[in-house]
């Protein structure tokens, strides 16, 4: 049972990781949490649908077209909106992204209504993988299309992103800009270009994530992306904002932890609906105890350790109490 959970977690992570990497990149370069990221995923999913149904193309073509489309759209968003909010701190673009999310989500509702639509791809039944759970001796299941495809795809994309970030001039420029935009500018990096490129990449990843998610859930609906947005945030925060590798790790940990909850729930007789406490609980814990996440990038603001803060608070309470008593 545990092994199955691990495998399911891995597959789910492969869906989340795409969106998480995109979100992490934007957070690192543009320095704000993109609350429209979930709805960008949804747009990607629906655009793939449009491509397959209107253009009668296969889902693969749909995926690629959708990624390109959303990359372009993201660049437009940066041009029209976010570039004008530079230098004003994280709250202004955050609010703008909320507005954008409202627009995207409801544009989909206008175009497609609120019902669930599938890609219409026939799925084979889950087949046994030949792997055995060492504890229970049972065979472990994975669906070739819904399970293997996202895994393989995510693997390829991760390699691609790694290659871009590590070995291309653009990738290095992106990393430098995320680390220290002023220094990057001074060393001759075209920061504007980096920002557009990051948006394009993030958009493409969001689209891919949306399509994979719709694929895996076997249906898309207007809340597709936004319903997993907090989950994606949890992965990004756990991994460390601005670090796509951290986001990968974060997605893995959270998806696996979430799936491990099910055997745990069975064992301890906890109702299954409490599963959501895992990703949110992890996120909140990370924010409290280690806000820079696993990859530990600098926060950009001062933060004394929580224990010291709590101790100070306790001291000020006892101080006020003493004063109260006179």
């Amino acid at each position, binding site marked *: 049972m545990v092994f199955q959970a691990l495998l399911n977690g891995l597959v789910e992570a492969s869906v989340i990781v795409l969106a998480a990497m995109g979100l992490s990149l934007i957070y690192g370069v543009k320095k*704000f*949490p993109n609350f429209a990221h979930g709805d960008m995923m949804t747009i990607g999913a629906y655009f793939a649908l449009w491509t397959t149904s209107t253009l009668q193309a296969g889902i693969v073509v749909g995926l690629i077209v959708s990624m390109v489309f959303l990359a372009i759209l993201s660049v437009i968003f940066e041009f029209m*909106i976010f570039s*004008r*909010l530079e230098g*004003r*701190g*994280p*709250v*202004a*673009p*955050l*609010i*703008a992204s*909320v*507005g*954008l*999310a*409202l*627009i995207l*989500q*409801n*544009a989909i*509702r*206008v175009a497609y*209504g609120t019902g669930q639509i599938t890609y219409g791809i026939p799925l084979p039944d889950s087949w046994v993988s030949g792997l055995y759970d060492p504890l229970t001796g049972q065979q472990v299941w994975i669906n070739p299309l819904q399970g293997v495809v996202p895994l393989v795809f995510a693997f390829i994309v991760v390699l691609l992103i790694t290659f871009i970030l590590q070995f291309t001039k653009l990738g290095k420029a992106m990393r430098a800009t995320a680390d220290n935009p002023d220094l990057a500018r001074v060393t001759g990096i075209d920061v504007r270009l980096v920002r557009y490129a990051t948006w394009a990449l993030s958009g493409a990843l969001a689209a891919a994530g949306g399509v994979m998610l719709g694929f895996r859930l076997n249906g898309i609906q207007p809340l597709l992306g936004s319903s997993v947005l*907090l989950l994606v*945030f*949890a992965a990004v*925060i756990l991994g460390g904002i601005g670090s796509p590798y951290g986001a990968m790790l974060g997605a893995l940990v959270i998806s696996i932890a979430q799936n491990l909850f099910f055997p745990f729930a069975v064992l301890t007789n906890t*109702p299954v*609906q*409490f599963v*959501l*406490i895992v990703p*949110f*609980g992890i*996120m*909140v814990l990370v*924010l*409290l105890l280690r*806000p820079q996440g696993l990859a530990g990038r600098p*926060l*950009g*603001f001062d*933060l*004394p350790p*929580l224990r010291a*803060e*709590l101790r*100070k*608070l306790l001291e*000020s309470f006892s101080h006020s109490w003493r004063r109260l008593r006179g």
Partner: protein
Amino acid sequence: MVEAVGVVADLASFGALVGIFAMLALALNLQWGKTGLFNAGIAAFWGLGAYVASMIVTDPVPTALARPGHWGIDQAAFPSVFGVSTSFTVAIIVAAIAAGVLAFFIAIPTMRLRADYFAIATLGFAEIVMNVFVKNLPGVTGGVEGITGVPRPFEFGSEIWKTNLSYFLLIAIVTVVLFFLLERLVRSPWGRVLQAVREDEDAAQALGKDTFSLKLQSFVLGAAIMGLSGAFFAFWLRGVSPPPNSFTAADTFAVWVIVIIGGSGNNRGVLAGAFVVPFLEYFSVRAKSWFDLGEPLATQIFYFRLIAIGIVLILLVMWRPQGIFPEPKHVAKRPRWVVGR
């Protein structure tokens, strides 16, 4: 005559909702406009207040197969004053306190975070409270179905317009009193030091101010007001239900919209802005009959309204972030009604 009564009932109901959102917006204005705490967990404080109030004014419903039960209090235990049960007064007070307590525990670990991290953290906490706990405790909160049969403080049976109107007047009074109290608070030494903290926390600390405690006071007070609003919302809706029916992130964003439109930091502007969101809702529902719309436009108008809100939000942030009404510059003034002895 019948039509006029219907219109009154309608408008009163709309007015009550405006008051409820006005309370939320005034509270957020205190937390964010005056103190700089960007609260993205409004739905949780609002929802908790609504749920607590609902549980206090309804009898307990045991868990049954047909519907999940919920906690409650035997209404016979509450004495009546002027024919109105005191359970409502208790309910709104306890709802406010409950929301304040929740805020206290959430704020202590999260308040030191930068604004965007704080928003994500409060959003996460709100999800945990509403989507994980409230939604999934059938014997306590009514689970996925929520609580129904919540009465209004003044019931006039079939004369709906009287019920609605009296309720609207109640909310209006509470909102106005709240407005004046908050304005008083803002013009006090506390408001002044809070302004200093918001402008430059380090400088305020360098003057010996316990900025953490000050911010905590503001956050808890704001949350208590949100709980109060939640209680009134529960009476208005005559029930509560968990997300995704109510108390979602969308509601939180709606309150943001009101405060941003009205002008962050300006209570008067916020009151004006509080008309916008319920009005759009009201308009979308009525548009079908007013303009004789067919489908799909009749349903789509709801989405267009949200798209419009999104566009307005983006435009405001880009071009007029201070909102429509700018923040007033104030001096701490001695209130006229404080008379020396």
